[in-house]
């Protein structure tokens, strides 16, 4: 893997000799334009391709850098090269401000995010054209000297763009193969599930946007002097974002080099048509290519090639560690360490008057509940009684509207979900939510990296392999989740929850929809999980499993706790039977009273 950055640097060094060949100046300019689009498309991809937040505001950040550079050169007579860091910085700050506002609002995803960032472009353009920065006439840079980096000015621009492209590709590569990148890809597939396994989604998106904007701003700074005369009408448009989207989608957005491939292809294509005096045909051809790419290669060129390559040479599986409990990390907390943390009489999780309302519907109405160290606690109750809401609040999926939640003596109530996951609580979803573009192995490795705190992806994979063996999924390690049946998906959910090395596991109806034989497997598995030292809370309707597994049950009804104690005893209580079955006499009365109205 580490060969890639060396290859990028070596290629850049080799290409740096092109101006020495003495080619006509227009080649330098063509190469400059190709590299310019490589920087813009690749930088766009860092946020938008990796995390799936398609920004149409790349023109705004590119333009911010361009105008920063132009203004500093024309008005304050800064030397050109010094304006580039300033351009990158300002674009970055602008991106962070926009991101800090936009990413705070849940629900701004997909098309809404695209339009919002597009609107930012027009607002910024309007502001610039109406203020002395531009003044409506554009900024001329004719008087600014081009530094003599290359033998000619056009060679200088080429070398600058080459440096920028190499830097951008290195950054894009580094992110793609790091833990940061894994988190971004997880956000792309399922942001809520990513947060719940411990990905700090807000910070990651903001950081990706900041990096993306800084690189675009740098490209803008270089382009200002290349254009020599800048106007708002040509910069703050929909064309810049749409072009980079086109390039990235064509090349492949889930690969660090995809946008670069697309940028080279599209720029050459457009240039070819323009040079042959068929600019119009070129424009139409780009449209045709985009349509064909969307219809026939929605993943892009590069992933297509990779898939073909992978079929010829399957990737090797990491070895299965002998002991899946503590495969590598000596720092992993042991049961003994946990018991001291929860010193207050063996209580691991304590809920006091915990409440959650949805616009006046009280799903949890003041729940008092204790989960004890090392037990298997079953949560029972009729549909809508608040069991799943309780799990959602404890895991941080919902924020409680009142009450307190303490885990190992630590206040948990207003913590974001990823902090809760890192603090030792993991959950499964009733309907499995695997990351669709990750292999089964990488789904689990993600949880190891984020919830479990294993930094390196290779170590995480090795450890994840252990959890796949634990849940019996090792043969499916390289399959995509879509290839699994429901039973296997549920076990994948379990493996993912366990991989974070939680002290408390919340299982939301893991048995629902399984066959009796599969239920037996799952019951044995839950026992093994507890034997590892984890405490288990599970919501379940399958009474056979509840009776077999639980040390205690808590019965929910109408958002509150109705009863708690050993399962066999609690289920005999009249109020519990009433909650489940209703009172026969009451029901008869009600039917009699309603009768005439319905007759």
């Amino acid at each position, binding site marked *: 893997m580490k060969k890639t950055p060396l290859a990028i640097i070596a290629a850049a060094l080799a290409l740096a000799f092109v101006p020495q060949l003495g080619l006509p100046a227009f080649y330098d300019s063509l190469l400059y334009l190709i590299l310019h689009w490589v920087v813009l498309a690749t930088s766009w991809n860092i946020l938008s391709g990796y995390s799936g937040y398609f920004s149409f505001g790349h023109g705004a950040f590119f333009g911010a850098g361009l105008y920063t550079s132009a203004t500093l050169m024309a008005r304050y007579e800064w030397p050109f090269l010094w304006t580039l860091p300033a351009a990158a910085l300002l674009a970055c700050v602008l991106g962070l401000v926009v991101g800090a506002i936009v990413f705070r609002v849940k629900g701004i995803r997909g098309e809404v995010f695209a339009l919002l960032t597009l609107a930012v472009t027009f607002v910024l353009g309007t502001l610039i054209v109406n203020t002395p920065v531009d003044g409506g006439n554009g900024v001329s840079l004719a008087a600014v000297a081009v530094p003599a980096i290359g033998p000619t000015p056009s060679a200088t621009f080429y070398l600058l763009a080459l440096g920028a492209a190499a830097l951008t590709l290195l950054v894009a590569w580094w992110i793609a193969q790091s833990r940061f990148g894994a988190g971004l890809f997880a956000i792309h597939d399922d942001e809520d599930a990513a947060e719940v396994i411990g990905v700090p989604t807000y910070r990651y998106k903001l950081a990706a946007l900041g990096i993306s904007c800084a690189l675009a701003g740098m490209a803008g700074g270089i382009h200002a002097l290349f254009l020599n005369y800048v106007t708002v009408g040509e910069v703050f*448009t929909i064309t810049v974002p749409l072009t980079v989207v086109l390039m990235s989608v064509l090349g492949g957005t889930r690969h660090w080099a995809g946008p670069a491939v697309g940028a080279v292809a599209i720029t050459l294509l457009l240039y070819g048509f323009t040079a042959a005096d068929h600019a*119009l045909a070129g424009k139409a051809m780009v*449209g045709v290519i985009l349509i064909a790419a969307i219809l026939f290669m929605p993943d892009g060129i590069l992933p297509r090639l990779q898939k073909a390559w992978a079929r010829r040479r399957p990737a090797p599986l990491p070895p299965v560690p002998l002991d899946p409990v503590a495969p590598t990390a000596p720092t992993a907390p042991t049961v003994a360490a946990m018991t001291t943390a929860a010193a207050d009489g063996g209580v691991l999780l304590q809920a006091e008057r915990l409440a959650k309302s949805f616009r006046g519907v009280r799903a949890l109405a003041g729940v008092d509940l204790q989960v004890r160290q090392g037990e298997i606690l079953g949560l029972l109750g009729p549909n809508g009684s608040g069991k799943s809401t309780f799990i959602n609040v404890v895991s941080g999926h919902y924020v409680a509207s009142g009450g307190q939640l303490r885990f190992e003596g630590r206040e948990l109530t207003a913590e974001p979900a990823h902090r809760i996951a890192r603090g030792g609580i993991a959950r499964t979803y009733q309907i499995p939510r695997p990351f669709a573009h990750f292999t089964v192995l990488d789904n689990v490795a993600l949880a190891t990296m984020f919830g479990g705190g294993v930094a390196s992806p290779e170590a995480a994979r090795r450890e994840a392999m252990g959890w796949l063996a634990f849940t019996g999924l090792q043969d499916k390690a390289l399959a995509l989740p879509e290839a699994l049946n429901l039973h296997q998906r549920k076990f994948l959910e379990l493996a993912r929850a366990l991989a974070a090395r939680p002290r408390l596991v919340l299982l939301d109806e893991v048995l629902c929809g399984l066959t009796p034989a599969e239920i037996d497997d799952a019951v044995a598995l839950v026992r093994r999980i507890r034997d590892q030292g984890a405490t288990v809370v599970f919501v379940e309707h399958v009474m056979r499993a509840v009776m077999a597994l639980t040390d205690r049950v808590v019965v929910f009804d109408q958002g509150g706790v109705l009863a708690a104690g050993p399962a066999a005893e609690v289920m005999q209580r009249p109020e519990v039977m009433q909650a489940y079955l209703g009172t026969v006499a009451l029901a008869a009365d009600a039917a009699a009273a309603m009768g005439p109205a319905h007759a």
Partner: protein
Amino acid sequence: MSGFTLPSATLLAQSVLSGVFVGALYGLLGLGLSLSWGLLRLINLAHFAFAFLAAYLCYQLSTKGVDPLLSLALIVPAFFALGAALHALMARFAITPFNSLLLTFGLTGIVEALIQAIWTADFRKLESSYGEHRFKLGALYLPLPELITLALAVGLSLAVWAVLRYTDLGKALRASAEDPAVAAAFGVRQQRNALLLAGTCSALAAVAGVCLALGYTLAPSQIYAWIGVVFAAVMLGGLGRALAPLVAGIVIGVSEALTMAVTAPSWAPLVSFTLLIGILLLRPGRAA
């Protein structure tokens, strides 16, 4: 940048009026876009290219002596077929909303190149007898092309609203948008309905195009000039609602016109896009 001066009452009233007129065109352009996005889950960027293609066809027919409004009889069915065909393609490949945006952007580029190849990149203006008529109401001028646009926008929006609200077809369309599987279980013929709706959306784009030709100078690059503000109107109104784009369009048109009257024309885009950003931040659910 001109200073902050308060214009006279007549000028202000004339501004509001011109805002209403341009807002009606925003609404008419946005109507098909909103229906397609809200009810078919397809974001048709080519809507604007279709409108301009229709405008150029109307222009071409008028040079042959065909009345612009009469040309609707030819243009509307043609674009209905075009829209239905495009939808058939996108449905065949089960395109996601985001990919529909990209695909129709590609189509926009093709249509733009086609227009430029046939009619060149120069500005074209339809000359008709409509342009010479203008009514006077007190001190205010009411140009006929703009009145036609307003009448068409209001009439068509109301018609679509009535169809969606009162007919079985409208109910079926709304049900399909909310839950396709359940709607199918109730016997809704979704494919036929979707084709019908997609065709109607393109036909609406064509009508808007004829209005464009009546009131504005045409150039291929102008296709992109309308996208931002019409999207703002669509999002402001909420998706898949028939009257909302018109109301939102007029709100935007009037606030733009007032901004222009009070400050300078170059400030106008700030209004619509600030409105859009505000709405998206405060009510992101509107577009979900």
